[in-house]
């Protein structure tokens, strides 16, 4: 009896033993539960289309906020962010940007580099995947070709931004075989910049015929043939800056392609291009289709407005009071010499914003918000935080005048960037308006400039500029010169992130370029400042990179 029992016990033990080995699973393969891998993607056409979106993603981060390109606008002659005590002090990055004393660790230029190259890398990855899929027959070449062209176009567009902002940058065109530490095309800055230029030019020329020709809804917010033509036109317009060779004829050729297509025309009202719903604009060529629900990233209302604007516009979110319009830029609207037109009562540029006679340009109030702010019930807005030295006291009156760059500018100093219609009752950080990167009126001004550069008394050039002026309700120019053309471009393309490009293209009054001339709160700057520095974090991560000349 006892023996039997023992045996049973031992069987129990043996069962335990057996469990040890039966249970010995050794499968350690990994299954992802909530993410997608390429193994289960790229199966239907919608997958291809939606994967394309990743090539556009970085654009939305670059333009609509102060994170990247939007932040570097502070270096131009039309915008500034002044320091008010600790507000916007931020380690001096805004002051240094504006005064052209930017350092390689500036987070705004670093972001510009990183985001543009994210766009390049995303495009390379998608190109690699599409090429593989076409090669394996998984997608039809006829479906694949426009995708490939679109991706190459986006990659070239990012390179166009990199060329303009940094000059000599690594050219990476492969995803699978990319070097871990890519170097610039040349350690000589100018030689490297030329190669980046050549790359952008050859890419766009190569894909022109494969890109979608349709404008409107089908390619809204996408790289189509007209975006490519336009980017080429701008590349050629600045060709002298990039490679030391003027290409005016090529500029005209590509602007003509757009003009002659008949796809685009000036809207009768300048402001209509920037409405909350500006999808219907016949003038906008390339936009970022920001959406407060689906595609966030456009936060002008946060960046620009005085805190009192919240109540005035019934916003359900506060504003940071950042972007200001330089007084000198405001003056180019009201000054009859730079902007001849109907005269009326305008605010002067003095601290009290005295009412004087000046030019009435219907872009002034669209682009810039100034003057007294009233609440919706008509009562004057009050800012309890206003400095004692504010001539208007706590009454909020935004003056075109800016008291100082630092350390303690007035809270109500400087007109605020407006341009885009503000949705009443808007909540959150994201606006619904589509941000305009390329617009038909700039096509006209670009063509005009190229004609004028070839022949300063070209009649068509003057006529094209006056077409734009006419829409703004101001008088036609009778003659074109540097100052007039630059001022007109400044008013028309304000806050479209082309100002820096214009300033480094126009001759300055002190031997260098306009960009190097002194302006409000900015001393003269050396010419190496015409490109931004290679970010320090990139130099530290990639030993093959060399810094742009002049920066250390």
């Amino acid at each position: 009896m006892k023996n039997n029992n023992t045996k049973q016990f031992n069987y129990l033990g043996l069962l335990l033993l057996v469990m040890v080995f039966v249970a010995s699973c050794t499968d350690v393969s990994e299954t992802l539960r909530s993410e997608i891998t390429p193994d289960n993607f790229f199966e239907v056409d919608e997958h291809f289309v939606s994967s394309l979106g990743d090539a556009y993603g970085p654009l939305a981060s670059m333009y609509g906020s102060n994170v990247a390109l939007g932040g570097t606008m502070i270096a131009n002659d039309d915008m500034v962010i002044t320091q008010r005590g600790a507000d916007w002090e931020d380690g001096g990055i805004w002051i240094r940007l504006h005064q052209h004393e930017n350092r390689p660790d500036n987070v705004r230029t670093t972001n510009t580099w990183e985001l543009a190259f994210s766009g390049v890398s995303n495009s390379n990855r998608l190109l690699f995947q599409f090429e593989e899929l076409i090669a394996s027959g998984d997608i039809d070449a006829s479906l694949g070709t426009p995708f490939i062209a679109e991706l190459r176009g986006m990659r070239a567009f990012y390179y166009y931004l990199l060329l303009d902002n940094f000059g000599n940058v690594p050219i990476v065109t492969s995803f699978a075989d990319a070097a871990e530490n890519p170097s610039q095309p040349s350690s000589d800055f100018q030689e490297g910049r030329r190669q980046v230029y050549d790359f952008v030019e050859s890419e766009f020329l190569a894909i022109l015929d494969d890109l979608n020709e349709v404008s409107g809804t089908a390619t809204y917010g996408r790289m189509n043939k007209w975006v490519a033509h336009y980017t080429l036109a701008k590349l050629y317009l600045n060709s002298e800056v990039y490679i030391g060779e003027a290409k005016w004829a090529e500029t005209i050729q590509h602007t003509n392609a757009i003009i002659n297509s008949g796809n685009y025309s000036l809207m009768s009202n300048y402001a209509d291009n920037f409405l909350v719903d500006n999808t219907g604009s016949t003038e906008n060529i390339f936009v970022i289709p920001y959406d407060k629900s689906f595609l966030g990233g456009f936060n002008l209302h946060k960046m620009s407005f005085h805190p009192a604007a919240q109540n005035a516009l019934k916003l359900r979110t506060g504003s940071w009071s950042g972007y200001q319009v330089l007084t000198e830029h405001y003056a180019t609207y009201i000054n009859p010499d730079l902007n001849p037109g109907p005269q009326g009562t305008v605010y002067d540029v003095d601290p009290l914003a005295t009412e004087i006679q000046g030019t009435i340009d219907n872009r002034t109030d669209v682009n810039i918000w100034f003057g007294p702010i009233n609440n919706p019930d008509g009562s004057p807005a009050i800012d309890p935080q206003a400095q004692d030295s504010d001539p208007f006291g706590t009454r909020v009156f935004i003056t075109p005048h800016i008291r100082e760059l630092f350390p303690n500018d007035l809270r109500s100093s400087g007109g605020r960037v407006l341009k885009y219609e503000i949705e009443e009752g808007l909540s959150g950080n994201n606006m619904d308006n589509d941000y305009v990167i390329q617009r038909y009126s700039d096509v006209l001004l670009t063509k005009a400039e190229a004609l004028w550069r070839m022949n300063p008394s070209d009649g068509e050039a003057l006529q094209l500029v006056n077409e734009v002026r006419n829409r703004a309700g101001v008088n036609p120019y009778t003659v074109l010169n540097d100052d007039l053309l630059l001022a007109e471009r400044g008013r028309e393309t304000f806050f479209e992130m082309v100002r820096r490009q214009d300033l480094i293209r126009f001759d300055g009054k002190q031997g260098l370029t306009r960009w190097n001339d002194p302006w409000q709160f900015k001393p003269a700057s050396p010419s190496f400042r015409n490109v931004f520095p290679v970010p320090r974090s990139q130099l530290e991560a990639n030993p093959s990179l060399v810094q742009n000349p002049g920066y250390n």
Partner: protein
Amino acid sequence: MTTKNTIKYWKRLQKQALTFVMGVFVFFACYNTAVSQNTVTGSVIDAQTGEALPGVNIVVEGTTIGTSTNLDGNYEIDVPSLDDTIIYTFVGYISLTEAINGRTQIDVALLPDVRMLDDVVVIGYGTQERQQITGSVSSVSTEAFVTGNVERATDLIQGKIPGLVVSQSRGADPNSPPEIRLRGVSTFGAQQSPLVVIDGVIGASLENIDPNDIQTIDVLKDASASAIYGTRGAAGVIQVTTKRGSTGQTNVSYNSTFTTTGVENRIETLSGDEWRQLGQELGIAVVDFGSDTDWFEEITQRGNNSVHSLAISGGSEATTYRVSGNYRTRKGLLQTTGNEVKSGRLNINHRALNERLALSINLSATTREEDRGFPNAFDSAITYNPTAPSGNDNLTDFFNTGGWHYTSTSGMTNPSAILHEQTNQREDRRLNASLRGEYYFDELLPGLTASAQYSYETLSRTDILYATRQGESGGGATQITLGSGNIDRRYSDSSNELFESTLNYVTNLERLDIELLGGYSYQYFFNAFNRMQGSDFLPLDPGPANIGLSQSIPEGRGIIQSNESDNKLIGGFARLSLNFDNTYFFNSSFRREGSTRFGPGNKWGNFYSAGLGVELTNIFDLGQDVNSLRFRTSYGVTGQDAPFSGISQFRLTSAGSFLVDGNFLPAFGPNSNSNPDLKWEESSEFNIGAEFSMLDNRLSGSFEYYNKTTADLLFEREVPVPPFIFPTRWENIGEIENKGFEFAISYDVIRQQDRAWNTGITFATFESVLTQFVDEGARYLGNMGAPGQSTVTLVRVREGEPLGQIWGAKFVGLDSNGRSLYEAEDGSSVTSDLLTRADEQVIGNGLPDFTFGWDNRVNFKNWDFNLFIRGSIGHDVANTPRGFYENPAIIQSRNALKSALDHKDFTSQALFNSYHVEDASFARIQNLSIGYTFPINNPQIRRIRLYASANNLYTLTNYTGMNPDVRYSDRGNPLIIGIERPEEWYTERSFTIGLNLDF
């Protein structure tokens, strides 16, 4: 009832009555020798817990006459003469020699031997005699735990184990556990803290165990000891053994404490008057709201904790059990913070089938409800305008901010409003069930044991952030408009299942004892996460519960997210232990383990160890004074798993939206740079040590040296863009070398029955050097941040240099205009605008040269005292609050530290520099306690002890910030060491009274 039985009954009753009378007699006249000439009776109890000790050996000195105590701890011994001496000995206790001196009733209390030199040590998958250990293992048991204001298991062993640092770097935050580091900084990966094993459950959470339920904590410090845990042993292992029931009478134990806490040390800021005056003096236009508010006082409160813990244990020969319930509440130093913790635990052990089958069941459950508050209120309390009115009364101008004073200066938020217009709640529910069966094959093959264990642990966590529409931070209110409010509810469920089985075989060949262990381990982890967020509540504030009232969700601006992930670790392991003649010892272990997280070629890793030990007293005659002297040396290799699932794979995730034909489609793109080549991080460690015990075991100690190299460090490094899509990627890069000495020494200064004094010192040195890194380039990390210093970095990491380097400009003085001057590379002095990175230099190191603990335990009659001091010497802390707020120029926008009054001559902008790095060496009275055990001769009550205790009573340091303790990480980054931030929690000083009641 038959007559016979009746007589029997009466006889028994008489006997009982007699016993009773005798008992009363003894009770009232216990020194009366009349009962029996040569018989001594009495009881033996544990001097600290008061529990009866069964099985204590009792011998009459110089004779072979002996007995032992029964289950109730009582004994009776016939002695030749009442002038003899009796010796009481028991494993784990200090033996006691007691002269009879004519007494017939001798009750003694034995003191536990804190050093546990001959005790059993819990190692991976089993236990070993202390002498057999060849790696580095430190143990602390109940008697030596830190007492007083103990919140968590780790508080019990703070400073008690050389090389183990439990840093209070998170101050008195009631809701974040302390940072634990073993033997320096050896990894940057996911697991920087040691692996926790509770009753054999690997990877268990210390949050699911009440300190009152812990019997011992064994720390496996070196790789040879922890290698059997393979992938997760790299940062060491903390083994926790819970209390269990014992056969015999039912024991009820009740412990209760009440603690009151206050801020140990605050940062002084300018008062309203000082601020106005300083502004006038320096010609800075300050904003004067007319009041005088001490914002720190406005947001803090006296905290308190109370703990109730009840445990019942007991059992029969076959089954023992212990069941306990614990209830803790806590009110934090910061207003609106606190928590409530309820936990229960049941341990059952059962033996069956002729003692061949042993079953154990452990169940535990903990719910923890936290009000986490908003520690950024601490930062705001430093900087908020001291002339602003406090409270929310009569401030009708500020209706939209709930009546709290408001200023629109960016980054400036009313500290009180931060706390009172928002809530930050967390609720954790944890459950752990563990079943284990063990079977002894005593007839089939004596010495063979098989075991199987299954455990399941879950954590359900709810995090709710809520901000009212009056709330500025979080809610978005301004003085002139209401905000949108915010509800953010996050739910996560995580669980892990562990199945393990082992075979153990013990045999001996003459003088050689052999133990062989083999086993299999399978662990499956699962996580699920859900989140919903909404804002825009009109027309009212709904409270945190009803997110359906949000308008942003129907408008498409809310957030709804979910994700799931799982992973597995599968391993096989083996160990061989040899013991030759209790003189030579050998241990070796091996584990092969696979992880789902690595790429196909790199899933499996091998981890192994070997160690040798020798007991010299068995080889050489070292004299009577040396009780034991052991040398041991070992080497082992352990690993570190990848930090998260999917890390090696190319993954696509929704990357915003993409407009196609006028409709938005989700765009898909990669969510990170993948790395299919990622592999195990490997730590190899060499350890050599000696242990001794002398002078009748009164003096004992251990000494260790270790050298640990962690290679193929898992690290998220910066990569160039291009060619990468994102600027960082997880890679195996670099190597850290850690080395150090550790020693522990313990001495019984006094060892008598009614008085004892034990003093012990632990000491450890550290050196952590990054011997290899991505490349030779330096990495600058740790942003100083807002206000105004977002481009200033605080730390440099570079190949070949020690870890913990604090980096920045070296302050040399002021120029004639009061502008700060810094040392330039060429030795000249420059102002900040001319300063370049080349001028910056090492200005401190955040890691200590050594840490120490000094413990004193005194028992005198019914009194017990404990004084415990711990400290850390030679580390620096970057005092960033000074770096921001000591400069008087800051008062044009923010309040400054009171020390700004000493710096009126500073005219330049605040810039963090060497002037703000301070030597933070400290010694702290961690614990001072005094207890009294009431002398009770009531058999129903075994012990009543009352005690009072103070924690953080005094800190000796020159550091001027809030807390000199070592900071091992900064905002989660382990490479950034030694930074104190303005939003950190302050430390607390606490006073506790407690009651132990056993019956």
